[in-house]
């Protein structure tokens, strides 16, 4: 591994200063499960690593009145073990739980998964569907941005130099609102998603969908919200015709590439399949609330 400098600040301000002031590339280290792989392969050659885990609040989950607030460096295992969160947003927790192995879960963080900006990141479609908001600290102070605004392309984010995510806020689900996430991988574990799909729906008392967010992963340079797919659901029950329209809308939104993990044709087809399966779970969960 190439040589580099390392610092572990104990306040947000210290971290911002270190990131902003680095002459070369500076990277945040939370779980390290993407970063260390990229350092090792030479894909990234930062001059400075800033470990944010010693900043109070960066690891931990707190429940506020209207949101769950997840520290940016909180490992997936802690997220999965948080029962209130799992009850509120089972799709998010399932998605987080799918990231890698148990060993990866012991370290990998939501913010890391988001800022690594892989088009195939597992947790990202789920948190976008759940309307997650990121709290960002930087040289200009704090700001907020919806999760979908962060990844701008493979490996690229909208964060400016000196900025890093401090926490991710997940609003509490509204009544009769629920989410689900599925991904397709060739094995049963350990693969990067070939297609990922996160859906959040809100139903009315009659089981009709009133609001929906459909997000696809690994079929475009970033995870994408698919408004057309949401429209296929809104105002309808999940019957065969709705499913068929949802499938078609999901497929139309795909702009995937051929790569070692999947072909364009395959990803597009499976995006439709997953959208149907995820919608079924989300509707069922919402109906039970």
């Amino acid at each position, binding site marked *: 591994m190439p040589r580099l400098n390392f610092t572990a600040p104990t306040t947000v301000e210290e971290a911002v200063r270190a990131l902003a002031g680095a002459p070369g590339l500076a990277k945040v280290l939370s779980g390290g499960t993407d970063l260390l792989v990229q350092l090792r392969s030479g894909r990234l050659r930062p001059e400075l690593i800033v470990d944010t885990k010693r900043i109070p609040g960066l690891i931990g989950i707190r429940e506020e009145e209207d949101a769950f607030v997840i520290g940016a460096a909180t490992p997936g295992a802690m997220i999965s073990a948080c029962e209130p969160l799992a009850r509120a947003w089972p799709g998010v927790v399932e998605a987080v739980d799918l990231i890698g192995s148990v060993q990866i879960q012991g370290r990998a963080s939501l913010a890391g998964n988001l800022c690594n900006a892989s088009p195939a990141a597992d947790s990202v479609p789920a948190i976008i569907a759940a309307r997650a908001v990121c709290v960002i600290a930087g040289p200009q102070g704090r700001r907020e941005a919806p999760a979908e605004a962060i990844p701008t392309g493979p490996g690229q984010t909208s964060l400016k130099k000196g900025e890093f995510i401090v926490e991710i806020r997940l609003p509490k689900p509204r009544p009769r609102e629920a989410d689900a996430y599925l991904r397709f991988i060739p094995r*049963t574990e350990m693969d990067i998603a070939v297609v990922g799909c996160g859906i959040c729906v809100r139903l009315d008392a009659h089981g009709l969908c009133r609001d929906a967010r459909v997000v696809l992963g690994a079929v475009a340079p970033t995870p994408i919200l698919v408004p057309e797919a949401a429209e296929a659901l809104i105002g309808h029950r999940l019957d065969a015709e709705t499913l068929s329209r949802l499938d078609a809308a999901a497929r139309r939104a795909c702009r995937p590439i051929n790569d070692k993990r*999947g072909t364009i044709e395959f990803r597009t087809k499976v995006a439709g399949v997953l959208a149907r399966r995820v919608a079924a779970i989300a509707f069922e969960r919402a109906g039970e609330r």
Partner: protein
Amino acid sequence: MTFVGPKENLKVVGTRPIRPDGVDKVTGRAAFGADMVMPGMLWGKIKRSPHAHARILSINCDKALALPGVKAVVTRADFPDVPPELAYIGEAPANLRDLSRNCMAKGKVLYEGHAVAAVAATSPAIAEEALDLIAVEYEVLPHVLDVEAAMAPDAPVLHEDVFTLGVDPKPTKPSNIAKRIQFVKGDVEKGFAEADVIIARRYTTKPVHQAYIEPHACVVSVASDGQCTIWSSSQGQFMVRGYTARIVGADIASIRAIPAEIGGGFGGKTIVYLEPVAYMLSKKAGRPVKMVMSREEVFRATGPTSGAVVEVKLGAKRDGRLTAAQAVLKYQSGAFPGSPINQGCTCAFAMYDIPNAVVTGYDVLCNRPKVAAYRAPGAPIASFGVESCVDELARELGIDPLALREKNAAKDGAKAVHGPTWVNIGYVATLEAAKASEHLKSPLGPNQGRGIASGYWHNAGGESSAAVHVNEDGTVTVTGGHPDIGGSRASMAMMVAEVLGVAYERVRPIVGDTAAIGFSAVTGGSRVTFAGGMAMTRAAEKVVEELKRRAAIMWDISPEAVEWRDGKAYPAGANAGSFEPLTLAQIAAKAARTGGPISAEVQLNAQGQGPGFATHICDVEVDRETGRVKILRYTAIQDVGRAIHPSYVEGQMQGGVTQGIGWALNEEYIYDQNGRLENPGFLDYRVPVASDLPMIATVIVEVPNPRHPFGARGCGEVPIVPPMAAVANAIADALGVRLRDLPMSPPKVLAAIDAAAPLAAAAE
């Protein structure tokens, strides 16, 4: 003394004791290749070609040498030229010149990852920095990867001095087809003319890697007088010594190769990559050098097995009797000649007694790493084609696949396509066990299917040495020459304990280095239990003779009047005298006074290895919307002759099956258009994980091999031969759709389902 007979008489062989190296392995104490440290040790790293095919124009190491901490740099210039002679040191004969050039490229780089230079430095980080400072100028040449593309007349040629062997008249133009071989039995034209049904199919496979979890690693120390110690994990310390000596130009006796514990080999560690390079670095630096490959290097630069094309044509009567069979096998050899095409050809139809057959094989160069042996090299690929085709024939004829195999099964007295007449084989026994299995009778649900496939491997004999030493307290130390890759140490101790009649716990096996034991060929070819066990048993028998002689001295009677039973010397009959039996410990205690240390060493070239046959049953479930295949149930039935330690025999079967499943479903090398490997890691080179598999049922069939003292046959390689066809046949049963291209990954399965959909709809 032969023991082949009722198992009930055996006290140790056939039981399941704990292996002697077990505690070290479950506590992390066992020392593998990368675990050794030598005082003053440097770290070595290799600079590798980024191009699949290129001429090396220049290499400038000045900046690297100037970096503080760098103690040596080597290139091809440091290596002697080696004549292109074949050496029979490893698992297959190796061309030493090619092996030398594989370790360090000469003139041309032939694959991405080919070594062009190496450095030794005081830390891994400095060694890596130094690699970046070595400037190599290349003239990039067109490359070729695919086997048939490489065979085309206008393909870029890898070696100007390779002309196709086995072709008449001798070609004058160099070719990537290194050799063509053919095996003929009977008259295949006549045979096809007699057939009621003929089917011809084409199957293709991609290169796959053995994917042992331990990357190659060694520590080499060369002193200023040329004496050298090599610590490395390999499948043969004598192979390491022999190849290294030839490649660096040293006397064999100057090298002592110590076998570390080995973290998996499966054939991939029956040759050397690092040791000769570490030798040169150590010689130049005057200090020991440690070299450990990264996982990426293992994938980019060590031998996978061939990708291949297998064309099969079968002719049969309506009742299922095969009248003729034909196969054409095209195997990649990689950067240098030497794919397992011979074994592919000889194993292809081995399960069957066919009156007329032709098997033609091609060994084809291409810009990939030189292929290395991978568990039953050549056979799984050929069997994927043949066993899939047999299944297709069965469906065509409307005959049960198991019944079709029974009808044509090879039996004692039948002549194999490649020549030999079968003696003492157990193929039919595996078919019968399959028929009787509960698995075969269990019901299947929607989108589920069942596939059957058989397999064969000839196993191997060869050179082995063993020493049995009786210690002063009556315990026994046995030294063998074979690295233990699967539990063989336990089996060696068990066989010796059985012969001596003592408890297993009193026998301590070790794997000796090249100075401690006689020459032993590699751990591979499924030969250690057979050949190593034979040497061990004979050595133990000699010790028994010596123990009897010592007892005779202690009793002052003739040695002919002494028997050995249950670990004791007895007078043979009342006439010999009424003496209390002497235990091994009692005789050992008096050894100095009765003639000195009690030991025996045996060296042999074992002959009479028994071939192995297997029949596997696989159930799958297919998700029709995504093409994902789930293995629901798997039963592996295999004739192993005699299971010395049944747990480790089962382990070989389960491990081989798992590798075959990975080969069938998801493993493959993926290259970009520049000939660069895109998936050199375990993320995208997808071996089966624990959640991918069910329990793997094993059925051990024992048709003893009378040429081994305990009746053992090799067992480690046969299990990888049937799975790919078993899975393909199961998928065909589930979907009514046949896949003929490996791996059968979800996109391909889904595409096959979708292609058949209009036909299926029309059929409704």
